[in-house]
């Protein structure tokens, strides 16, 4: 299976462990990733906060490149990127005059017909059953809290992916790997997102609540599908522990990490040794 690939700035920047993980795992599952030629930043929070047209033009440029190069589908592993792309597709399809305007701004024709998918959707395209059959090392001691964050499921009208209040698409995959995901309350609560630099206190407080709730429900690790969530829960975990006087020591895995491990890939090639928190799976709390 071949699919267009839009890494986004995070996966080529400080979350390059996620890219390693995605590439290694999808290759092992027979999915070929074709990186978009000369892709640009989607604009993230800054663009939609500052200039509406720019917040559509930047994603549109990438969609136009995908169309030009003949990709019918495109994987964007960062939910912020996929959200901006899907929002733009919707706006452009609602208004042909806007589409013409944007086409002029980005200097490329655009129809907005490319299907943008997130990492979980690609795994569903591969097939949960196929993944289950490919498992070499069942993750039976893993009790992950599947953390979706904000932008994988909201707003449901645009993303049309999984239940925005009690999603279970990650749990389905994780169970196929032999792990036992826990039932917990903070699946879609915000971690503070891009406020890591600009308003760190909030990130610390929100992320602390997420980690605490995961533990309270018996999780011995957390699994995410978003690089920003990973930064806030992993890179910032020491800070959270210090400032909240707590002890979390929870490994934060990417969903692709878990699949890679179950398929027999090593921690190094999956980028897991680049994570900040390295903790043996905590004893299961009954």
């Amino acid at each position, binding site marked *: 299976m071949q699919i267009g690939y839009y890494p986004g*700035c*995070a996966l*080529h*920047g*400080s*979350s*390059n*462990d996620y890219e390693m993980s995605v590439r290694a795992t999808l290759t092992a599952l027979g999915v070929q990733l074709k990186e978009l030629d*000369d*892709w*640009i*930043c989607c*604009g*993230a*929070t*800054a*663009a*939609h*906060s*500052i*200039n*509406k*047209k*720019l*917040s559509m*033009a*930047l994603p549109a*440029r990438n969609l136009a490149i995908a169309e030009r190069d003949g990709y019918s589908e495109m994987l964007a592993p960062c939910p912020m990127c996929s959200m901006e792309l899907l929002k733009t597709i919707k*706006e452009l399809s609602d208004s042909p005059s806007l589409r013409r305007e944007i086409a002029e*701004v*980005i*200097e490329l024709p655009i129809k907005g017909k490319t299907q943008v998918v997130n990492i979980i959707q690609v795994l569903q395209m591969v097939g949960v059953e196929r993944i289950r059959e490919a498992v070499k090392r069942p993750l039976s001691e893993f009790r992950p809290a599947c953390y979706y964050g*904000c*932008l994988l499921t*909201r*707003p*449901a009208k645009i993303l049309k992916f999984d239940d*925005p209040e009690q999603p279970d698409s990650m749990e389905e995959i994780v169970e196929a790997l032999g792990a036992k995901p826990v039932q917990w309350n903070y699946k879609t*609560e*915000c971690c*503070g*997102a*891009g*406020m890591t*630099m*600009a*308003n*760190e*206190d*909030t990130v610390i407080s*929100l992320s602390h609540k997420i980690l605490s709730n995961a533990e309270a429900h018996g999780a011995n690790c957390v699994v995410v599908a978003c690089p920003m969530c990973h930064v806030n829960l992993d*890179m910032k975990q020491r800070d959270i522990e210090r400032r909240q006087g707590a002890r979390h020591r929870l490994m934060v895995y990417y969903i692709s990490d878990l699949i890679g491990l179950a398929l027999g890939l090593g921690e190094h090639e999956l980028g897991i*040794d*680049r*994570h*900040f928190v390295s903790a043996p799976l905590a004893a299961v709390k009954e």
Partner: protein
Amino acid sequence: METTANLISEMAHTAVEDCYQCGKCTAGCPMADVMDLMPNQIVRLAQLGEEGRAVACGAIWLCVSCQTCTQRCPKSVDIAAVMDAMRQLSLERGTASESVKRTVAFQRAFLDNIRRNGRLNELELVGQYKTMAFLGDVSVPLLFKDALLAPKMMQRGKLHLIGEKVKDRAVVRRIFDRCMRQE
């Protein structure tokens, strides 16, 4: 019968008139505890055409765009888009509150970085942001916060001294200029 079109409704592509002030947005907002104006109050100000107060508040820059409000609103009002509209307006009118200078500085630095490189250069961004913020409010602790993280990130290969650059950077600049110029 003609009714005056609502400025915020037009900017945000949503009908603020539909809001019946139930407060569910405020109830679910992860940042509400530290906001000076509540999300439902910001929509109310938009309804009354009094967005002047809203664009000067700190709340709109504390919003993390988590979309919880939009998702749960019983009247399908896109509050997250209203927040975007307020942010855009506050920059247009130059009314961003003092308390959120750093956040605004960060977002501006981010866009500037993209404009120059086509993709985010993290080290460059941090440097620029800290400098701007330091010059803005002379905060020495801010300058050195996160500094301890840098070596750890570099150790893990997560920090690149030289960031990625897009090949066709000129088109990126042109896209930016076209969009920002039309403000």
